[in-house]
């Protein structure tokens, strides 16, 4: 039961990634996905293996990594913005086929 929000959150993330055009919005969707997975870890840890802490630690590290990822991603987005003057994902499709 505790996993339902996480699942929905993940689904929202996927949905957002696929549908949104704004790169920042896409990054937000990705954050949702990462966050939902963290919930998974924690819930599994708490409910199934309450005598350990490794799920929690994993979530901890995952949060840190997610933060790093976001930082790099935002840097790239800004970079793209500088070149393309837009943050629209449909703009960066020059490399294809």
């Amino acid at each position: 039961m505790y996993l339902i929000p996480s699942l929905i959150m993940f689904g929202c993330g996927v949905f957002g990634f696929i549908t949104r055009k704004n790169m920042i919005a896409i990054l937000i969707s990705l954050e949702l996905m990462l966050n939902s997975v963290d919930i998974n870890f924690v819930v599994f840890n708490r409910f199934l293996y309450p005598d350990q802490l490794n799920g929690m630690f994993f979530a901890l590290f995952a949060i840190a990594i997610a933060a790093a990822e976001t930082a790099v991603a935002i840097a790239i987005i800004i970079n793209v913005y500088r070149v393309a003057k837009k943050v629209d994902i449909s703009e960066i499709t020059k490399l294809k086929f």
Partner: protein
Amino acid sequence: MSFDFSILVLAIPFFMFLFLGLVGVKMGKKITGVVGTIAMGVTLFICYSIAFTYFFGTDQGQISAEGVRQSVLAYDWNWLTFTDKLVVKLGILLDPISAMMLIVISTISFLVHLFSLGYMSDEYGKPEKGFQRYYSFLALFTFSMLGLVVATNIFQMFIFFEMVGVSSYLLIGFYYTSPAAIHASKKAFIVTRLADLFFLVGIMILSYYTDTFDFNALMASPESALSSAHGQTFMGCSVMAWALTFIFIGGAGKSAMYPLHIWLPDAMEGPTPVSALIHAATMVVAGVFLVARLFPLYVLEQGSMNIVLVVGAFTALYAAAIACVQSDIKRALAFSTISQIAYMMTALAVSSAPGVGEEGGLGYMASMFHLFTHAMFKALLFLCAGAIIHAVHSNENSHMHGLHKFMPITSIAFLIGCLAIAGIPPFAGFFSKDEILVACYEKSPLWGVWMAIVAGMTAFYMFRIYYLIFHWKKHEVKEGHHAPHDMQWTMTLPLIILAVISCVAGFIPFGKYVTADGQALHTHTNWPVAISSVCIALVGIGLATKMYFKENDLPSKLKSKFNGLWTAAYNRFYMDELYQFITHKVIFQKVCKPIAWFDRHVIDGTMNLLADMTTSASFAIRKMQSGSIQSYVLYYFLGAIMLAAVTMVIVLI
């Protein structure tokens, strides 16, 4: 006297072939011809001494206590091992027929060599282009033919069959710039090749069951050879009958039996001496020789023998009929040859086994006898024709007429030849033909009458040719041309020699030397047959004299009266057209071309299609790489989901 030197018979011509072919080009033309002729003379001498030693030598024990003439195995080398038992050997086997053939071949070959010295030169005695090549090929042919007759086993015979075919091809195509010659040589080769195919199959069947190629082993007990197939049959006939029939077809190809005869008339495109040598005297009798070689087997397998008989008899009549109307003298002679060879074939076919009845083996003897005499007088006729053609530069008898005054020697020689072939005593043809007719009557009166009619036709058409060449009307010398005249001695000498032989050969006691079982066969003249055959011949000659001696309109009247028959015969009953249709229209157009098309479009097309499919698949999936991250991720995610879902479905359900 030993037969060790017999190898020279093969070695000299072969060496001459290489020598003249490789070195001769650098030598003078005349010298080449002379060297070739002298070498042939040496071969001739050796052949004669072999034959003499074989027939008359007594110290070798060739004649056993029972009076049977043994065959001598002078050489036998392993040449090619098929299996432990089936080994192809090359060697020299001397027995009556091979010794006889040695004489025939070497004689004619020598004379042709001699004759060609003149024939192959222009009017001023300057040798033609390719003179060396010509002599080289002649030597090759002589080698092959000699190798054929001395073959110790059936495979060696096949080998030399092929060799003979090739040298014949080369000689027919000697004038290689002429399309007709190319065509004729090709035709000759392919038709005989087709026959050889059957020969080969026959050999394979025969050797499979008998486990040997060797003539001596086969002949030692023909009954056991035939029974080695253990009564196996194929399509109702015993396999041995099949084998022998196939082998006969091989022989029929070389011997121009109907329906494989079509190459021979065309082969007349070659130089005339070549026709004399190959297409009159030697190569064309290879088939007869083959059947004679295997005679002990054939005689036990009457089914095959009957086929030989029917084919032979039919061909004799058929060819004779065509010969009656040909205007090209060489073609006429060619059909005459076909007819005569069919005569020999028939003689073999009607022969009973030696020792059966009073005349057992008579047909065999007669056939060989006729082979011998025919070779002589037919070579004579061809060489005469050669002399004539050389003089008037044409093959058509319409360009000749009335040459008797210009070329007396040739005329007389030709007349002797005609008399010999017509079977007028005392010329050679009479004796041999008479024996054949006797043998045919022995078999059945039907065949006797049949062959007698053919004999009459022979007399008719030969004299028709003779009259049309030498009489009919006065010869018109075209402007700018020399009047025809008799040739220099190298050309007339062979004519004279052959004419003499044609006169006297009939008196050779052939039955004493050449018989089916090696025992002397005592013949006696069958007077009714002899007289009747002479009468029929005389009727034929008379008819010809009536029609063709002086210029008159009887022939054209008859021609218009029997126009259909005449035209059909003139066109050789359309056999060539039939072949043409089958080869070009059916095989070439309906088999080869579709196969080639199929190959390029279907087989190759499939391969190209595979390549094209790859490329188009490559283009079809191009859209996958659309450049948009979102679609990439969609693929990614769906891929992962599918991976999970499908595996779940497969594993858990």
